[in-house]
């Protein structure tokens, strides 16, 4: 039990590092939401283990790490993971590309929610470029899925 917990933590930690790593200025708007993608994978693969509690705590860490108003990422992560966890059986039955499409939709929802909360707190205006990471995340999903499945099977994480 604690063994698989530490494996999951390690993957989320790696995703966190990738989400914070500096990128060239021109690539910055296209960075996919690594942490949320990894959390979504675990919530579909092991819904009894990774669900809203994980999402909330990881979201809080993300808030602190990127310096956004506290609670915004925890709220949006919780909502997204709620959607994936409550539909994990349906999601598992879709083909990889269909899954990617749905994940893209969830990511778009995540970005809209985040924009809306930030708009409420910080007085910013919508820019369609805010949705690029959702598209890139959608394209990344199959590879993340396959990679993490291999990781999960190799270390028998349950």
């Amino acid at each position, binding site marked *: 039990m604690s063994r698989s917990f530490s494996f999951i933590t390690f993957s989320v930690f790696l995703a966190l590092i990738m*989400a914070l790593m*500096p*990128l060239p200025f021109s690539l910055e708007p296209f960075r996919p939401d690594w942490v949320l993608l990894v959390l979504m994978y675990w919530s579909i693969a092991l*819904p*009894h283990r990774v669900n*809203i509690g994980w999402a909330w705590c990881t979201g809080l860490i993300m808030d602190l790490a990127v*310096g956004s108003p506290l609670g915004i990422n*925890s709220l949006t992560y*919780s909502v997204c993971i709620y959607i994936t966890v409550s539909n994990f059986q349906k999601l598992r039955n879709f083909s990889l590309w269909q899954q990617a499409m749905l994940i893209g939709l969830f990511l778009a929802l995540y970005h809209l929610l985040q924009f809306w909360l930030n708009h409420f707190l910080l007085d*910013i205006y919508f820019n369609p470029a805010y949705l690029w990471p959702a598209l890139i995340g959608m394209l990344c999903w199959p590879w993340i899925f396959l990679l993490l499945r291999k990781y999960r099977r190799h270390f028998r994480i349950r």
Partner: protein
Amino acid sequence: MNLLFGRSISLQLRLTVAVVLSIVLIIGDRYTSGGTFVRTTLNTLVSPVLYAANIPYELFNVGAQSLHTRDRLLDENEVLRAKQLLQSEQLQQYQFLLKENNELRALLGASARQSHNRQIAQVLSVRSNRYNHQVVINKGTIDGVSEGQAVIDELGLVGQLTHVGTTTSRVLLMTDTTHATPVRILRNDVSMVVEGIGKINLVQLAHVSHSLDIRIGDILVTSGLGSRFPEGYPVAVVTEIDRDEGLPFAKVYAEPIAQLDRIRLLVILGENSIEVSDEP
């Protein structure tokens, strides 16, 4: 494998608790100051992650530096030496002027100018929330910095410290939409307020009346009002004035003097301390 059935807490309940907790956090974050013990502790918790995320960039930097050719280093050394010579000449004048200024102020009975202790900080290249303009630096409470201190670079004002942790803190840039800086025009001492509008190379002046004497190219320096930013540091240069009589105020835009998009080394200005007037 145990599935969702037969679990103690339902998903809906978990979501409700998570949402309520988040909203409490958001409201709490909004209406409390950032210097509290809880906030410092939380910021300290994520500091290792920030340092870890900075490692690839540092390695790249070290690699690039060790590949510099000898000639290039010598050239750079030459340029820096010349610059240092010029600056030390100016500094000699400065000491003299400082003394003279203090004497004149003493004659006038005005209070002595204040000096600050300074600290050099390095920017960690870590991504930040894209709706804010802020950067992370490698100084925290352990180095004696505290929230609200002014931060400058070699050219001008950069912003102020927020979210101070033990070993890292964040600098809110003056171009952020939540930031305002009290300034005055260097040419005629009219004071006003500069507000960030979320663009890295543009700030706006608030409430400028149509008849105000302001021209393109005017330099704005901190006015020291509000006692958050020490007086006299360059902030921005006026670049655009739109005196549309149909609007209640003139629209005046300025460009920050500090190179906010490529900051690497910063200076944190310390708490004010009255300068000893009989300094040599």
